[in-house]
């Protein structure tokens, strides 16, 4: 017979997303039945979102260390050394479920949340990116979702004055009922000004700053850990509204306070708000925390402890200050017009103790909420290796040029300008490479160094072969950084999957991570932060496995960088890497032959590394400034993108057999370089010395693209189909 506190039943426990078993463990830990507030606190701390109960076992196997790593997973964001006493701070986070329910606010608060994770650590955010997945463009909800999400991301980031410099967008019917909105922020901090979240000492003041607490998003964390069904609309009132104005003030106020030495620990209030922030600070610092909830600034009257602890109101932070610094800190927050309240103390009890109206309303050992959280080694099954797509499954198209136009105007390859022109990508005046390139480049303010940043994953590869797909996602991020001339440093991830309680989905997760880990190790590209979003399913239909990778690299001298644009007539086009004509899982197969089968292109990590290092060296030595990696759509698409960016055409030479495989195959570890004619021999011989395959592809020039001197595809037609898709398909008037 299970024991319940007054007013709580087995149904209450279930509604909190806790299993009978988990409830049993809570009883054991507490030595008594938890009251309603305590149950709420356990439910959010033990939710998938906060406890990583299905994923933790596998996350541990990812590579997270390296000489460049200052702080790996476990803090609000990861930190890497970028030289000169500075560091880059970054993380990616999902806001999938809220964005499906209310696209504008869901996406906006996602951006707000990830920026807080970065400035909590003392860094000024310098770049935002976003990785987005939507359903079928023809699906009735897609237009509304795309417009709302894009407007929300812009609405928040633009107001904050942080440039949104890149990201990615895909469309696939598997996201019809579960869009993905993953937001990434990169910040820069002086290494001696980094702040962490571990509380220290006993009797130190716990301080609440930012916005007031309302009844927003109560149970957001558990919502993010539940599957959708057709009744999800009922969960609507839990949506939070973002206030970027307040967040901008919070950013400036926090950085002003951080310039001094008043802060012992600081933690943003994200998912599970006051609960997870106080528990995490206590747990990391191995102290207890006692809060007086009467002091919590509330937006509404009559808010109960349960609501205050579970509210996900935005734009709030929790800090532990050195004793005696409260008034100096308060003056700063007063100046910025923000709430400031001392709401508690650190203690030596090891408990989270909550007082409200002179009563103890909750008293939980902190370890019970963290260490004791369940960890599941969920059963999983391996995804069967798909058969390689037979050549006759993908015959040559009637017209190569027409096929190129189809691809360039297809949802996954069309220009994303319609999206990124809604983002302020030039504020802060340090955007050296904005959206539209391989990786964005942001100058580190006041220096001649830059950070290169990208987000990548190819979900259709992950679906077909999760291990290969996991490798490829990492390899592509690394390659995009390399293509602009950057030295890749580290990555963050956002692991979006379906229901982990299904062995097939859990298997996708396990195998994608295995591929990612292998690639991270092989490329010296550790994972320093990330986020897991599971249960992305509606009515049993899971999304494609989508482990989005956010990559960060450094360019030590901005004079030595590359962009995608072709520059000059007469330049020679070179392909670096071996072109084998792999059409399985290619966009050519999907868009021209409506086939989504076959094995994805294999990734050879040693080759990846060798080819990439060679290309980076070419850029560093000034032998080329025009480089593009070859990914979705293959070589012809890569050249077309370079031509459009530069406004110059090109004439390509291709083999006469399997020409379409050569042009549209998606073999990995490849780049296109445009070089001055006098550099060609030098590059080819150095490539040979480095055992890197390199070949002449053709020449730059003309007003269109030709293959083997055939009929030209004019750049103007190409531009029209490429730029037109979003405006015509997705533009809505409001």
């Amino acid at each position, binding site marked *: 017979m299970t024991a319940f506190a007054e007013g709580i039943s087995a149904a209450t426990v279930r509604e909190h997303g806790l299993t009978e078993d988990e409830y049993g463990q809570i009883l054991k830990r507490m030595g008594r039945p938890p009251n309603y507030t305590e149950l709420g606190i356990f439910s959010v701390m033990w939710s998938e979102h906060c406890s990583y109960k299905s994923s933790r076992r596998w996350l541990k196997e990812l590579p997270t260390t390296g000489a460049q790593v200052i702080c790996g997973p476990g803090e609000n964001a990861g930190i890497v050394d970028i030289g000169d006493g500075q560091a880059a701070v970054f993380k990616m986070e999902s806001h999938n479920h809220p964005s499906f329910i209310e696209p504008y606010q869901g996406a906006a608060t996602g951006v707000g949340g990830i920026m807080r994770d970065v400035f909590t650590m003392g860094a000024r955010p310098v770049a935002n990116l976003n990785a987005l997945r939507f359903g079928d463009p023809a699906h009735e909800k897609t237009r509304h979702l795309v417009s709302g999400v894009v*407007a929300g991301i*812009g*609405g928040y980031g*633009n*107001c*904050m*004055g942080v440039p949104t410099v890149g990201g990615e967008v895909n469309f696939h019917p598997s996201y019809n009922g579960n869009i993905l909105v993953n937001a990434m922020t990169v910040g820069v901090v002086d290494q001696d000004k980094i702040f962490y979240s571990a509380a220290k000492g006993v009797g130190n003041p716990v301080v609440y700053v930012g916005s007031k607490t309302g009844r927003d998003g109560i149970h957001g964390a558990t919502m993010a850990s539940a599957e959708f069904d057709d009744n999800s609309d009922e969960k609507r009132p839990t949506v939070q509204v973002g*206030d*970027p*104005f*307040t967040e*901008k*003030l919070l950013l400036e106020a926090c950085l002003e306070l951080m310039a001094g030495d008043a802060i012992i620990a600081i933690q943003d209030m994200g998912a599970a708000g006051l609960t997870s922030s106080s528990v995490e600070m206590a747990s990391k610092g191995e102290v207890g925390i006692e809060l007086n909830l009467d002091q919590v600034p509330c937006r509404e009257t009559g808010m109960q402890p349960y609501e205050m602890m579970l509210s996900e109101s935005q734009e709030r932070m929790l800090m532990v200050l050195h004793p005696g610094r409260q008034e100096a800190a308060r003056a700063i927050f007063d*100046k*910025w*017009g923000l709430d400031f309240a001392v709401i508690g103390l650190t203690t030596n009890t090891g408990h989270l103790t909550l007082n409200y109206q002179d009563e103890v309303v909750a008293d939980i050992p902190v370890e019970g909420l963290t260490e004791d959280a369940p960890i599941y080694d969920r059963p999983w099954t391996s995804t069967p290796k798909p058969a390689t797509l037979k050549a006759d499954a993908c015959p040559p198209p009637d017209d190569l040029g027409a096929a190129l136009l189809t691809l360039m105007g297809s949802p996954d390859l069309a220009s994303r300008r319609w999206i*990124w*022109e*809604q*983002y*302020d*990508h*030039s*504020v*802060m*005046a*340090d*955007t*050296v490479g904005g959206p539209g390139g391989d990786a964005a480049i942001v*100058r580190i303010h006041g220096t001649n160094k830059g950070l290169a940043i990208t987000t990548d994953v190819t979900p259709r590869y992950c679906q077909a072969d999760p291990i290969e797909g996991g490798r490829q996602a990492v390899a592509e991020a690394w390659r995009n950084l390399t293509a602009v001339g950057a030295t890749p440093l580290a990555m963050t991830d956002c692991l979006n999957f379906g229901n982990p309680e299904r062995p097939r989905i859990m298997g996708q997760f396990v195998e994608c991570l295995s591929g990612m880990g292998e690639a991270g190790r092989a490329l010296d590209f550790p994972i320093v932060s990330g986020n897991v979003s599971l249960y992305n399913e509606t009515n049993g239909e899971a999304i494609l496995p989508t482990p989005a990778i956010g990559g960060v690299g450094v360019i030590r001298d*901005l004079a030595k960088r590359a962009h995608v644009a072709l520059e000059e007539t007469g330049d020679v086009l070179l392909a670096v890497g071996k072109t084998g004509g792999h059409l399985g899982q290619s966009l050519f197969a999907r868009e021209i032959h409506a086939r989504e089968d076959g094995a994805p292109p294999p990734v050879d990590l040693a080759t990846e590394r060798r080819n990439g290092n060679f290309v980076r060296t070419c850029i560093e030595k000034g032998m080329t400034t025009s480089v593009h990696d070859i990914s979705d759509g293959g070589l012809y698409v890569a050249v077309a993108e370079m031509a459009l960016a530069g406004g110059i055409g090109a004439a390509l030479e291709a083999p006469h057999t399997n020409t379409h495989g050569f042009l549209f195959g998606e073999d990995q570890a490849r780049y296109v370089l445009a070089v001055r004619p006098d550099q060609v021999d030098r590059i080819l011989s150095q490539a040979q010395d480095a055992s890197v395959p390199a070949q002449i592809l053709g020449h730059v020039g003309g007003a269109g693209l030709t293959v083997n001197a055939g009929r030209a595809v004019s750049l103007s037609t190409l531009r029209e189909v490429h730029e037109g898709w979003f405006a015509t398909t997705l533009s809505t*008037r*409001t």
Partner: protein
Amino acid sequence: MKTCVIVFPASNCDRDVAVALEKMGASPKMVWHGETDLPATDLIVLPGGFSYGDYLRSGAMAARAPIMREVLKRASKGTPVLGICNGFQILTEAGLLPGALMRNAGLKFICKTVAVTVENNETIFTARHTQGQHIHIPIAHHDGNYFADEDTLDHLEGEGRVVLRYDDNPNGSARNIAGIVNKSGTILGMMPHPERSIDPLTGTCDGKALFESLVEALA
């Protein structure tokens, strides 16, 4: 040259314009909106951003901030004022320039580099440009759709006060207006961001001439 940049809550181009001024040899002082006094200055800059979140109307609350009383006083005595983007919105809300900046006709925020024609190079802001010069300079705004009644527009045109005009209207502005000055030519409001156009590494450099013009005129 002495300059002041006014910082409102959620200004976000204050640093960018300060960097630009610094580069031109003018050392800017940052002045908080809550101040009631300004130091001696040759130029006041109202920077871009989202003062007060652009809530209610862009620039509306900033135009009523305490420091604005002093800005109005100085402006009336002839101290030059440059309002960029949100700064332009604040200038119209404060009544220092006529008209209003409404939501872009396409309703979306627009960030891109646009072509603008310098319609009047006989101002302290544009002397380093040639008359009719086409410059390329970024815009980044949601509310840049300039509106004024026909009479006002005719006056502006007649008095040469339309200083900058879009070549290809991005936001629905009346008569393609991108920037105007007051009667005496001492106050310029413009939607494009010259401070983001001073360094070849980050884009075009056509914004530089504006700062050079000011340095030359006010040194």
